[in-house]
């Protein structure tokens, strides 16, 4: 009679049927995350390539055309047009026709041959900092390379005296998806799962079925676990789909073990579902549940290190980030997927996530009153 999970098998049975019979909810659980995953994955691409550039070549010599070619050859820029004066160039950038304007003044070749500093002006649209930074770095590198080459020629040397040979580990092509997609999975899973459990209990309250459950001898632990388990299965199924998209569509290699990947995901999803249940003990209707879920998603997007590195954040945001399960999950995913880390190397992250999950689950079972009003 005193079973702590009394009613669990009944709730589990009912919840599985309800979830699987409701194509609308199921569709909205699965479809948006997949779309978000693909959209996020493509949109969050930091690789700046072929940005539009207008050229104002007042020198019109072989050397000046060569410098334009050097810009184009980096793959960072593409020429979208020629302009005749500074006003036209500024207008092209202002109207968004080009991000970059390259101005080669009339004396460029003359200065070059006379051994004076030959000036090239690059106007960069700073309204998008990522693009601007990339354009700036590339232009400086081109100028530097050009200068070194001519100096070498003058000095009669064939080799540069010092050369740095950087080797990028774990993501050699520095592809953005490799960095972003594991984070996208963390955020997308949070959106889908938290909402699912939050809604499922709130809906019982709205429909009046909760009263019926409360007059039965079911235990609150049984209710909570029965509510959580079906969504844990669905969440894992969804995660598998997201990992598949990551691997096949975005070609992100999985360096670590799949077992570590799924074990971490299981703990993460359990934590999120417990969070959803906690919301449902607080929310009085679906609108409130929705708002609470949305409120919790925002910090996970901004402070978890998903887009912006946590190391550069002011301490307060960094601290907020360290309270979010998503933060630990994203760090774990990057470690396992990209660096092939093992679970023992990241036991701390796993322990924190498990602790959060169990605490949230216990909290919602204890908070849940078997009374109404």
């Amino acid at each position, binding site marked *: 009679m005193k079973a702590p999970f009394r009613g669990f098998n009944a709730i589990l*049975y009912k919840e599985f*049927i309800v979830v699987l019979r409701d194509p609308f909810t199921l569709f909205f659980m699965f479809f948006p995350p997949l779309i978000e995953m693909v959209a996020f994955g493509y949109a969050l691409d930091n690789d700046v390539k072929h940005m539009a550039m207008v050229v104002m070549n007042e020198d019109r010599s072989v050397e000046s055309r060569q410098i334009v070619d050097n810009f184009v050859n980096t793959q960072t820029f593409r020429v979208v047009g020629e302009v005749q004066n500074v006003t036209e160039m500024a207008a092209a950038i202002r109207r968004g026709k080009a991000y970059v304007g390259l101005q080669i003044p009339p004396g460029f070749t003359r200065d070059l041959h006379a051994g004076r500093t030959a000036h090239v002006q690059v106007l960069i649209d700073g309204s998008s900092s990522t693009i601007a930074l990339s354009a700036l770095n590339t232009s400086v590198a081109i100028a530097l390379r050009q200068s070194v080459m001519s100096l070498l020629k003058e000095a009669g040397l064939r080799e540069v005296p010092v050369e740095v040979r950087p080797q990028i580990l774990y993501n050699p092509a520095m592809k953005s998806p490799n960095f972003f997609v594991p984070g996208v999975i963390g955020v997308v899973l949070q959106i889908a799962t938290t909402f699912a459990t939050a809604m499922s209990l709130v809906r019982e309250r709205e429909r009046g079925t909760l*009263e019926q459950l409360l*007059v039965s*001898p079911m235990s609150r632990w049984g209710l909570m676990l029965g509510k959580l388990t079906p969504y844990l299965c669905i969440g894992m199924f969804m995660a598998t789909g997201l990992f598949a998209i990551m691997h096949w569509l975005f070609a992100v290699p999985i360096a670590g073990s799949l077992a570590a990947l799924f074990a971490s995901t299981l703990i993460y999803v359990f934590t999120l579902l417990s969070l959803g249940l906690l919301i449902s003990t607080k929310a009085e209707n679906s609108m409130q549940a929705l708002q609470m879920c949305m409120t919790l998603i925002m910090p996970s997007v901004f402070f978890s290190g998903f887009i912006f590195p946590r190391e550069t954040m002011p301490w307060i945001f960094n601290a907020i980030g360290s309270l979010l399960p998503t933060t630990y999950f994203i760090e774990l995913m990057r470690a396992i997927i990209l660096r092939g880390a093992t679970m023992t190397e990241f036991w701390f992250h796993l322990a924190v996530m498990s602790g959060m999950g169990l605490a949230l689950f216990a909290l919602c079972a204890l908070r849940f009153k078997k009374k109404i009003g």
Partner: protein
Amino acid sequence: MPAETMIECEKLTKRFGHFTAVDHVSFSIGKGSIFGFLGPNGSGKSTVIRMLCGLLEPSDGHGRIAGFDVARETEKIKPLIGYMSQKFSLYDELTVHENLTFYSRLYGLRGPTLAKRREELIALTHLEPYLEQRAGLLSGGWRQRLAMACSLVHRPRVLFLDEPTAGIDPVARRELWDLLFEFSSQGITLFITTHYMDEAERCSHVGYIYMSKLVVCGDPDDLKQLPVVNPPGTKRLDVTCDHVTVGLQAIRHERGILAATVFGQSMHLLVDESLPEQFLRDKLAAVNIQHADIQPIAPSLEDVFVALTNNSNNEGAE
């Protein structure tokens, strides 16, 4: 009645902030009774039921089911009670069969015991043809039967039904009452809230709650004998005539007519005992109603509740 007490309220009170929803309500209901709990919307009927089911904590007073305190021994009363809430809380996505299975499991039934009980309830409620239908697609009457079957899976000794016949057609209503009588004959104590007077007449006991207070409680026949219902020096008459509504307008404001209301082809009047029958006939003749059949009648339960409501309003006004 000598039967053992099954449900007992002792100064049961519920306050929501400054509002007192249930105010010192006391009554007791014997085993096997059909207790009809009546009162206008918002008078506190559902609140009493929720407290007796252990869903709401009483602010004051006590409620007991089979001797167990509803607030302190909530877990002990759960196996004893069945509850059918106003909204017939079923899972629309589940079929009739699945709803029954779910509620049986919730009450710890399993294996052959579960199957046997489920079959019994299906037979009792005649749900056989609808087993594979989703609960959400059932009509009101059948939903009701299913909800009732679900609340009986664990053989409760008390069944609380909160407005079980609201929005149900008359035939389904009659069939439902037949079922309730069957439960009662099996020894289940029934606690039913309703707005229908004909249903109240079917109950073995009725209680009437008005403005959070229990106004009266007892056997329907006893209630009809109350002095408030039959003020000294008055009599009740049934006047059957053509154009009753015209007739009502003609006489309702005359001296000596204390209350008048239409019942189908007749009027029910509460008049001074001294009022001569001829006076009524004359007044009706004045509006071209030549034939009227006038008979003395006993008060109905509706008369009882109208009289009690007016009486409490007057008391409140003084």
